[in-house]
């Protein structure tokens, strides 16, 4: 396996993701979480006093925005060093299911047919994004904050959130997908 060009198996990448938890705690007493960056962005843009949720000193939590900047730079770095337009080796059964939804191009990290500048696709992406943004604020965290950080702290609330993530995801995948695609 070539560490730079090949994808990493779960038993290498998963533990490394887990190590982000102690890394952030040790370097600055911070808890892993990505979705709060969106709240900070709103707080930075919306005039103070208008909306209670965004009425706080976002600059005091700006580390989170720098972390997100790093995420973007990480993606940029990998895109320069490696070819990300390879075929992800998903299960044959998944491929069969996706072909039914009209996916034919399996090259790259996402299906280009569905992520394309076409109004019908754009609506799915905006509405999906809306749910992620709304839901993560309502649940007070996303996959990183609840599934990784919260579960690492054995927080009961995070277990509830993760169960919710899967209830929602399973409903869309198994009941709604056939109607969208």
């Amino acid at each position: 396996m070539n560490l730079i060009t090949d994808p990493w198996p779960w038993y290498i990448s998963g533990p490394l993701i887990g190590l982000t938890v102690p890394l952030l705690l040790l370097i600055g007493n911070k808890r892993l979480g990505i979705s709060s960056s969106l709240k900070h962005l709103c707080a930075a843009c919306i005039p103070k006093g208008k909306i209670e949720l965004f009425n706080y000193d976002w600059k005091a939590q700006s580390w989170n925005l720098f972390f997100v900047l790093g995420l973007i730079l990480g993606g940029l770095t990998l895109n320069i060093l490696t070819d990300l337009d390879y075929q992800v080796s998903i299960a044959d059964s998944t491929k069969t299911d996706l072909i039914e939804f009209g996916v034919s191009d399996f090259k790259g990290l996402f299906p280009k047919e569905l992520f394309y500048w076409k109004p019908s696709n754009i609506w799915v992406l905006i509405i999906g994004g809306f749910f992620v943004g709304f839901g993560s604020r309502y649940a007070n965290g996303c996959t990183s904050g609840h599934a990784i950080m919260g579960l690492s702290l054995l927080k009961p609330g995070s277990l509830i959130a993760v169960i919710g993530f899967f209830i929602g995801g399973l409903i869309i995948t198994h009941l709604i997908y056939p109607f969208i695609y």
Partner: protein
Amino acid sequence: MKHLKYVLAGMLFGIVLIKSEAVSWFRIQEMFRFQSFHMYGIIGSAVIVGITSILLIKKFNLKTFNNEKIDLSLNPPKKVNTLLGGIIFGFGWALIGGCPGPLYALVGAGNIIYLIPIAGLILGTMVYGIIKNKLPH
């Protein structure tokens, strides 16, 4: 530049997310169809490492590099909003095949189309802020 360390930590996180393929729409579909162990392996092993490291921090009473006490306090769980919000998040997670961290990393990797779901994320956050008090919590 006291925030540089967070930029570097974020870069590591982004690189690992892409290398794990957790950023891939295909992997998320595979996960929600229970057709591979891959994503469960990632989340499971990440959580095991996270739990272990927090236990070690507690056991050895580790301090931050600035010698501060590490804050591991918990708030009491709020069940209603966490479950409802979680379900709504799940709707979106399956629709766009990505959660916030991966979306940022994918934009960085040059996939400009992912700015569309990110615009949705910001909109959703804003609307939640506006109607928060009318929702059950």
